[in-house]
């Protein structure tokens, strides 16, 4: 599958100074892997199939046919609280921008997957631990609003430590804002698939991650509301190994399926295909209004 040059460039890693930096140790099986091999294998350990966390643009390259038009990329975080802890918040943002080559914790846009046009959002743990601040919330909201306008299915990959503390309550409110956008998208007949990747917790898991029509999780991803450490401190005992894993959640009925990364694109193509039957979304209020020829909701309401 051809990948446009610019997409690859977005993630072109700096050439490491020494040869050793070309090698990475798998955190699961401990084997040393040559980084170009790892990248070629979609960041899956060839030895134990451990799924490394992926850069948003690597993920996009892996998924989309060849096109990707970013939206909301111009939105950049401010410092609404004038936050500082060890270092000022703007400085942290600057550091993360450099480290991750991203402008914020989510990349949103339009693309095709297996020929089907979709609205696609991909979170990235490399940027402030994938936390949701105002920009992540705004980009996700715009994604669902655009998907609604264009009648596109929406796919969101989540990876998040929760709401971003440095933006305080403005960050928490993004849970409400994104929820309203997802709900309106859904009520209008929209089809939404979320893919929970390692890790998906806190305010993101408790909003749009768990509001999809179909919820996938990448194999062995950590997923939950409270962090593992918080729970262990609360109950004062060690948690079982598989607790809060994708496989655990599948058994507990919380998610639809667990997918190995190598099968992800194929699975998404099939899931998108089922949604093509979605010509007659009957239970959504807006869709019903539309179906019976009633006047549409005010455009103003999309403000």
């Amino acid at each position, binding site marked *: 599958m051809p990948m446009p040059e610019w997409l690859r460039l977005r993630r072109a890693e700096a050439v490491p100074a020494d040869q050793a930096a070309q090698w990475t140790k798998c955190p699961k099986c401990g084997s040393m892997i040559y980084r170009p091999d790892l990248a070629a294998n979609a960041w899956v350990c060839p030895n134990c199939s451990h799924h490394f966390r992926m850069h948003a643009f690597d993920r996009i390259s892996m998924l989309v046919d060849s096109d990707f038009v970013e939206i909301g990329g111009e939105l950049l975080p401010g410092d609404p609280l004038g936050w500082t802890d060890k270092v000022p918040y703007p400085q942290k943002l600057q550091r993360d921008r450099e480290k991750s080559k991203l402008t914020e914790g989510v990349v949103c846009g339009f693309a095709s997957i297996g020929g089907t046009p979709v609205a696609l959002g991909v979170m990235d743990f490399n940027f402030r631990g994938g936390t949701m601040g105002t920009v992540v919330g705004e980009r996700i909201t715009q994604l669902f609003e655009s998907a609604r306008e264009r009648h596109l299915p929406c796919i969101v990959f989540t990876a998040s430590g929760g709401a971003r503390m440095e933006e305080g309550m403005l960050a928490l409110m993004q849970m409400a804002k994104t929820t309203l956008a997802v709900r309106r998208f859904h009520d209008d007949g929209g089809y939404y698939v979320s893919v929970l990747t390692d890790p998906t917790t806190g305010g993101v*898991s408790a909003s749009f991650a768990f509001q999809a029509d179909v919820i996938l999780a990448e194999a062995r991803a950590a997923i939950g509301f409270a962090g593992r450490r918080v729970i262990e401190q609360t109950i004062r005992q060690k948690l079982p190994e598989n607790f809060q894993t994708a496989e655990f959640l599948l058994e507990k009925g919380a998610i639809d399926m667990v997918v190995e990364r190598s099968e992800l694109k194929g699975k998404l193509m099939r899931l998108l295909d089922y949604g093509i039957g979605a010509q007659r979304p009957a239970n959504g209020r807006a869709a019903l209004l539309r179906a019976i020829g009633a006047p549409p909701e005010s455009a103003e*309401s999309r403000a």
Partner: protein
Amino acid sequence: MNAIVEREKGLIELEQRIAALKTHAAQQPVDMTAEIRALETKYAEIQREVFGTMTPWQRVNMARHPKRPLGSDYIAALDQFDELHGDRHFRDDRAIVGGFAKLRGRRVIAIAQDKGRDTKEKVLRNFGMPSPEGYRKVIRLVQLADHLGLPVVTFVDTSGADPGIGSEERAQAEAIAQSLYELADASVPIVATVIGEGGSGGALALALADRVLMLEHAVYSVASPEGAAAILWGDAGRAEEAATRLKLTSDDLLQFGIVDEVIPEPLGGAHRDPVGVVASVLAAVDNALSALTVVAPEELRDRRYRKFRRIGAPAT
């Protein structure tokens, strides 16, 4: 120890001295008016000094004050309340109390988080930390309200959603996400009041509302100050500092447009006049409902959308 309770000690001592003096004066033929007045002036001075301007950390402690009116106090002050229990699937979570109610004659569905007053009740109510079943009870009650056309009134007071094993096993994240999802779609007015601690997503799950009210000394925060301090500096002891950074007071939130109205508390906090405070909260809720019930359902939902849509959107 609660920092406010600590600070109240001197005042309580003074109160007792004034009371003793008054008793004494009533029994003896000596005029103690001057002494009493002097003490009362001193009392008022100290009170102003202690409570006149409170730091964010003091507000946190006020919000957690053991005598502060709880969710069930507001429920008890309604004209009428008929509790509806359970999520219909697994359990009745007592951390959330909900049911049909009349608020100043108006039929509503009222939902409150309740921390419990004494030890036994605290355990029963899991210290006000709802489990997934609590949020699923909320979903059910909001659907009922929607079906019957009744406004929804919520009282928010929780340190956060329960972080236990069972809650994770039964999909706490999904429960909160779906509670938000339900409130987003309700075609009836929703008024939420943060009465004590508004702890993160576990609080917001009851506060995606058309009007968000807040008591003066309540707090509403993206994370608990202790939790934030632990993450930021690896030291929960720096909670006071975190409290300042988090901008969790009613003034801050009013300014951010996150809270629509702040309901004043008496000097010294809500627990100095619980009956009065509860009444003024209910009056404010009633007021908010009056403005909302005249709005057509679709318009109501549109306004709700726009209200939250603005928060953190780029300036235009």
